[in-house]
């Protein structure tokens, strides 16, 4: 190819291999490569076929019930048909579960709305969340307009998972920013104290924090301060989230050249202006990948609240298959719950990728 170019004295047009040619060159260049490729393809095909046969061809769908499943060789999706309401709503009273579904939708809508750049202002964002939580709480808890009261101990399933997750992130994020700023304070007393606080909480396991919030706090606080177990646990969880996130944000700040802050001072901006207009926006841009990471991990970790007796979606899934009729169908239920988690975390990470693209566009 290069010889041709030299001979003719012209630069040849860039050559794009056709798809087939590219495949041949990339995967079947030598007999050895061809063999490896064929074997891998065969293995992948076998795996896909096995899963497909299990999940679709040999599967028992809705009707039939547990008896048919005992004979079937494939998946028993009948368990999902019979128990999906338990997985989605946990112990929430059966006749009121539409409220839980609506509340779930309200939280989701709030998250979606606040993900659009349109809502990113100090006025709009809190408004969106207060409205979202108001609707959620009203629907879930009830006690007005003829809706029977449903106590927090009966909340469960996906709406509980989403509620805990979004509250932890929404309350944890501002705390994290405060902690990060305090840790960079020029007053050593404040910086050191906050550093000890952050490192102290980070060295405790989350389960221990949740357990303490649920069980030990009632002993330590006067009764009127105790509140419901759910909110204590969420408070403990957001503190845990906040200390990790604070370090992520601090990392983002330290990635900034010192000249940025100095230039801001030279322009006569005060501390708050420097932080809110110069430092934090850039710090967040640097900290975006680990932040998305932390948020995804937090979503996964919500399943830990089962340790203090909450029926979030994972625990509800466990309850869905562990009865006499369905106890052989745990794989199906786990696959279903995994699909729910996947839908949420995959959306989150795609959103993270979108944010990165957007912020990069803004930079160039």
């Amino acid at each position, binding site marked *: 190819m290069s010889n041709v170019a030299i001979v003719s004295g012209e630069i040849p047009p860039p050559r794009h291999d056709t798809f087939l040619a590219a495949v041949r060159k990339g995967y079947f260049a030598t007999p050895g490569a061809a063999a490896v490729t064929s074997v891998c393809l065969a293995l992948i095909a076998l795996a896909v076929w096995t899963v497909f046969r299990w999940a679709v061809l040999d599967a028992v769908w809705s009707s039939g019930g547990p008896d048919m499943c005992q004979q079937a060789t494939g998946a028993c999706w009948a368990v999902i048909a019979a128990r999906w309401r338990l997985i989605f709503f946990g*112990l929430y009273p059966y006749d009121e579960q539409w409220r839980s579904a609506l509340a779930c939708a309200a939280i989701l809508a709030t998250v979606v709305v606040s993900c659009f750049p349109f809502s990113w202002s100090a006025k709009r964002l809190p408004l969106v969340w207060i409205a979202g939580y108001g609707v959620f709480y009203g629907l879930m808890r009830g006690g007005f307009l003829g809706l029977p009261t449903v106590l927090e101990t009966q909340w469960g399933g996906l709406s509980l998972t989403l509620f805990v997750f979004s509250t932890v992130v929404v309350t944890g994020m501002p705390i994290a920013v405060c902690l990060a700023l305090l840790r960079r304070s020029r007053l050593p007393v404040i910086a050191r104290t906050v550093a000890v606080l952050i490192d102290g909480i980070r060295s405790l396991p989350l389960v221990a924090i949740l*357990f303490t919030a649920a069980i030990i706090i009632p002993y330590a606080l006067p009764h009127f301060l105790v509140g419901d177990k759910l909110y204590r646990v969420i408070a403990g969880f957001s503190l845990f989230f906040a200390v990790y996130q604070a370090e992520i944000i601090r990392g983002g700040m330290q990635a900034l050249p010192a000249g940025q802050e100095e230039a801001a001072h030279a322009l006569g901006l005060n501390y708050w202006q420097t932080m809110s207009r110069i430092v934090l926006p850039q710090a967040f841009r640097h900290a975006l990948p680990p932040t998305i990471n932390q948020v995804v991990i937090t979503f996964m970790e919500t399943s830990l609240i089962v340790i203090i*007796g909450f029926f979030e979606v994972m*625990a509800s899934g*466990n309850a869905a298959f*562990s009865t006499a009729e*369905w*106890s*052989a169908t745990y794989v199906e239920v786990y696959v279903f719950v995994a699909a729910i988690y996947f839908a949420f975390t995959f959306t989150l990470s795609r959103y993270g990728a979108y944010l990165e693209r957007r912020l990069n566009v803004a930079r160039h």
Partner: protein
Amino acid sequence: MNVKALTTAALLAGTAAIVPMAAYAAAGDTLKTVQARGELNCTSGDGNFQGFFEIDDKGKWHGIDIDYCRAVGIAIFGSDEKVKLIPISWAQRFPSLQSGDLDLVIKATGWTMSRDTELGVQFSTPYFLGATQFMVHKELNAGSVKDLDGGTICTAGGTSTERLIADYIKANDYDIKLVSFEKNTEASAAYFANRCDSFAEWGPVLAARRASAPNPDEHAILPDVLAMEPEAAAMRQGDDAWVDLVNWVIAVGRIAEENGITSKNIDEQKANPKSATVAKLLGVTPGIGNRLGLSDDWAYNVIKVIGNAEEIYDRNVGKDSPYKLERGMNAPWQKGGVFVPPILD
């Protein structure tokens, strides 16, 4: 049990320092507290424990433990609508009892000395005896554990069951290989896939697994019993009247069974009591109520709604349930079991 037991141990060790201080603060007249609150706070689970507490398609709890919670509620309030079944993890049950979040723990809880003495917990009379047993493939024709010599046993690792079996095999000098799995679902799956000759677990769990096996008739539960655990209700130390009440709620189910009273025939029996005991039990002659601070028809209400001890057993784990667990030692002494109710005089 396995992971849960470890977490429990770790967390309890952590809370142990704090719990005893508060233990007595929360004690007192539990019955009055419950009546004033208008609700009985009893345990349910953070998941299912088959036959003891499990959730149906409509999110309602069922099981032996749930029935006893309801029975206590009915004894106090006359109906089970005021029983609040609070989802509680294994690790959380005793701390929540001490903190006053719970009035009563009925959650497949074994009566052990450390719980009884060190945790500030008082146990009721046992309402269930749980045995650790073996399930085998019927085609092996094994009549007892001895016949498994040279074979394999699947079980969940890190549990008390695993230790019990290891001790049992060693003590009897059998050549049996123990295959441990992380969870008992994995262990039972391995057993059903013919990876092992037998599967060892708590009897009710074995029965539950057998019920959901592809061919339940191909599996037998061996009569050998490795260990017997008495399950009892747990209450805060220091409220004897409350313990009495719970004991008598458990007792009336057994007394009713002895006298042939069921939830179906109770009204005939009440109209025509055949003995002084029955008359007292059903509140025809006074006495059963005010000794416990309840109304005289409390036992009638309990049996009418929940049934006698046999009905509770059969409905949840016995012949009317999917588990079909033999009653064995859980029967009263007249039927070959070990239970003897106290005397109602």
